[in-house]
């Protein structure tokens, strides 16, 4: 993930945008529940979560389309909570693009510049430059309906960028594109945003999209912020049960956390075996989450070994994904780089050396 240009900083210097305890209710539903978040200048941050988690509402609060019921929004050190959208001047790309159907491509892109009463020649130049930037040069006189979905998406982006916004807001802008186009477009988007040095707040439910684009990701669930971090942090060290389950493939096992003499912490799985952990969590019933690549096949019969039988396997190029049927804990996913056991074979499963074992209090336990 570190091959992209630009920096992935977190928490250096004064934030350009800061959300403090934002609350937004619709009737009895709390769509955004005390959301606090900071964006650094030039950062690409994504709000990630399942549909209905409040991410779009949060973005609309930042844009100024929704007034929060509580909390403040600070931009470049100024409280902008009460500002209306046009005063904020954030560029926004809408999910359905929201291109003006009665205006042609150039008029769409020029819209914000005309609102700012820019001289005619300047508007013309900047429109052409904006269209060139999104690889649509010379298409200014086209009707927006005559464009393909991908082109419309670029016009929407060009229109938002033409006003040179200090902050760019993107609401699932790729959801109406087909898979291949989506992948190419998001690479272009990240390169463009980084090249222009724009701070961007992006909303998506697509984890892969978030990982591809973002410097940092904020995972939301049920209106609440669950964790903020770089993609790698979220993947390697999820601090919340929801994040662990939502980001990447993972196995969930149940057990009891026990502290033994000498400070050694072990999980006694309900299925029998005991796995050793790094010290930290409180003893008691727990849920253990392990990524498929953190499990490995071991000899059956040891104290560590969880018995199972290979149910199916999928060759995925760099590695093979095994589906192991353990009678006690259902189907577990295990990744192996070597060609290992075959279908129907009995195996033992244990944590790989140095594996990340993520322990959370069992559901229902205090």
């Amino acid at each position: 993930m570190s091959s992209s240009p630009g920096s992935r900083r977190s928490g250096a210097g004064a934030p350009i945008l800061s959300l403090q305890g934002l609350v937004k209710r619709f009737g009895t539903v709390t769509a955004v529940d005390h959301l606090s978040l900071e964006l650094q200048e030039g950062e690409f941050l994504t709000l990630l979560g399942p549909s209905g988690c409040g991410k779009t509402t949060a973005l609309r609060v930042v844009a100024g389309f929704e007034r929060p019921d509580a909390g403040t929004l600070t931009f470049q050190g100024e409280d902008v909570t009460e500002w209306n959208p046009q005063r904020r001047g954030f560029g926004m790309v809408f999910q359905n693009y929201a291109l003006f159907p009665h205006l042609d491509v150039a008029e769409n892109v020029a819209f914000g510049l005309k609102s700012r009463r820019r001289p005619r020649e300047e508007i013309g130049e900047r429109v052409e430059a904006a269209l060139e930037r999104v690889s649509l040069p010379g298409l200014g006189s086209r009707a927006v309906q005559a464009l393909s979905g991908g082109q419309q998406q670029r016009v929407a982006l060009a229109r938002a960028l033409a006003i040179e916004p200090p902050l760019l807001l993107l609401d699932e802008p790729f959801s109406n594109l087909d898979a291949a186009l989506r992948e190419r477009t998001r690479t272009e988007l990240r390169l463009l945003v980084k090249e222009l040095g724009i701070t961007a707040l992006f909303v998506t439910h697509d984890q892969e999209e978030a990982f591809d684009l973002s410097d940092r990701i904020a995972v939301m669930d049920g209106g609440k912020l669950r964790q903020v971090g770089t993609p790698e942090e979220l993947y390697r060290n999820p601090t919340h049960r929801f994040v662990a389950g939502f980001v990447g493939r993972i196995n969930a096992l149940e057990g009891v956390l026990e502290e033994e003499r000498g400070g050694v912490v072990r999980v006694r799985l309900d299925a029998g075996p005991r796995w050793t952990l790094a010290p930290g969590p409180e003893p008691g019933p727990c849920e253990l989450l392990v990524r498929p690549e953190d499990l490995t096949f071991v000899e059956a019969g040891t104290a560590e070994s969880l018995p199972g039988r290979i149910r199916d396997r999928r060759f995925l190029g760099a590695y093979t994904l095994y589906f192991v049927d353990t009678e006690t804990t259902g189907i577990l996913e295990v990744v192996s780089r070597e060609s290992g056991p075959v279908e129907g074979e009995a195996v033992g499963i244990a944590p790989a050396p140095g594996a990340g074992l993520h322990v959370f209090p069992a559901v229902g336990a205090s």
Partner: protein
Amino acid sequence: MSAPREAPGKRTLWMALPILALLVWLVLYPNLFVLGESFLEDGVFTLEAYRHFFTSPSELEALWGSVWISLGSVLLSGMVGIPMAFLFTRFDFPGRNVFAALAALPVLLPPLVGVIAFLFLFGESGILTRTVQLVLGLESPPWRMIGGPAILLVHAYSMYVYFYLFVSAGLARMDESAAEAAWSLGAGRWRTLFRVTLPMLAPSIVAAALLVFMTSMASFSAPYIFGGGFRVLTTQIYSSKVNGELSMAMVETVVLASVSLAFLALLRRYERGREYAAVGKGVGQIRRPLQSRWSRILVPLAAVGGVTFLLLPHATLLLVSFVPEGAWTVQILPTRYSLDNYRSLAADPRIWRPVMNSLQMAGISTLGVLIVAFLSAYLVVRRRFRGRGLLALLVILPWALPGTVVAIALSTTFSVNAPWFGRFVLVGTFWILPLAYFIRNLPLVAEAAKASFRQFDPSLEEAAHSLGAGWGETMRRIAFPLVLPGLAAGGMLAFVTALGEFVSSILLYTHTSRPISIEILSQLRAFDFGAAAALGVVLVVLMALVFAVGGRYLRAGRVARG
């Protein structure tokens, strides 16, 4: 995401309050006033007038007459309109497009004009009547164009269009694969028609039926001209008013309004209930060429015959408009033709004055309607505020109120000068008719504007805001241009409707500002049929012109929107 739109409280309120106040004053208040008056006798509460209404044979006869004429109109219009919709949507034959367009012709006859065209055709001394009399060698006319059957004939002619248009639209929307599925499951052609196709069309058919029922409850011209001794509520209200029996007129108005409002409620409930649009992608309608040899001859023949019949009133009107005064007495066809009637349109102020009056009053009322309809449509569709439901109701309410009811309400309320009670003397002045036209046409234009607002996504306005446009600029550069085609079409329709308006005019007009329809009536009373017809032709031509221009403009608008 269709989250509720943010209401920047103050501006919404400042905009909504004046419009709400205006509509409460002009729409709600006069009707409540009539309701109140119907219970008062010399300032004392009494049910006497109602007791009188529900015990008087002639009043009950009028109520019953209105109801059965309306039921009959629904039945007859449906029997004509539904088969025609099937014919033109399902089958292909030479000239289909032309006939399909001509089938909507009755729309191009303002109420009173259509009725007098029928008079010239089927009346006692009408062209068709005398032809039949001569051919059969009869002593007296073969029929008399009078009473219930005459009203039903006119209604069926002018109202089948609702069934034709609604069912055609329903058929066009319908997923043909549902019928194909029925065939594949072994259902025959008739079983498919009655068990699948017609039930799927039920929403269109029911909506058309309710509309025809309401229109015919409100119908005044046909019963007024052809009624003879036949009583319906609208004509009963008119004669009570003219005879000075005001309390009876109030009660009759309340009864008529109640029936109409009940049907509005029914219609709304029904529309909310069901909509069978195609669920999946489906298969569109496929037009079949006619199969058998007989149908290939008979169907186009029937189509030509039908369209000729539809065109007869228009042709008759045009023909009679060339007849100078006194040149058509006992002959089948008039003996002399000249341009006299059209010349006097330009020369005789008695004739052209009403045309100018109508143009002026229609223009003023339409301008008012456009402004109020645009703003209230914006408020109802885009804003959330207290009183939004009330606003939506007040805007649609006049649509359900017969013109007679509107006129009685206005003439009752605005006949006294009591500024503290919101009452001013408008009766007997120029302003009463533009006001009546304004109220009657508001729903039409507001619905068109609402539909246009609903068609474009609110995110367009948000996009404009995010690009730095304020509220006013967004309205000017985004909302208004996008709503304009719908608004313009509605406005043009309102204009021509006001131009030919008759039902409220007859209760409210003053001699100096009399509209075209009233002049047609007085020429008719003076037996100057030619002059009446010439005025009718002027109305029809203006209407056709507006539809032609409007249609083109609308199509252009649709193309721009993809």
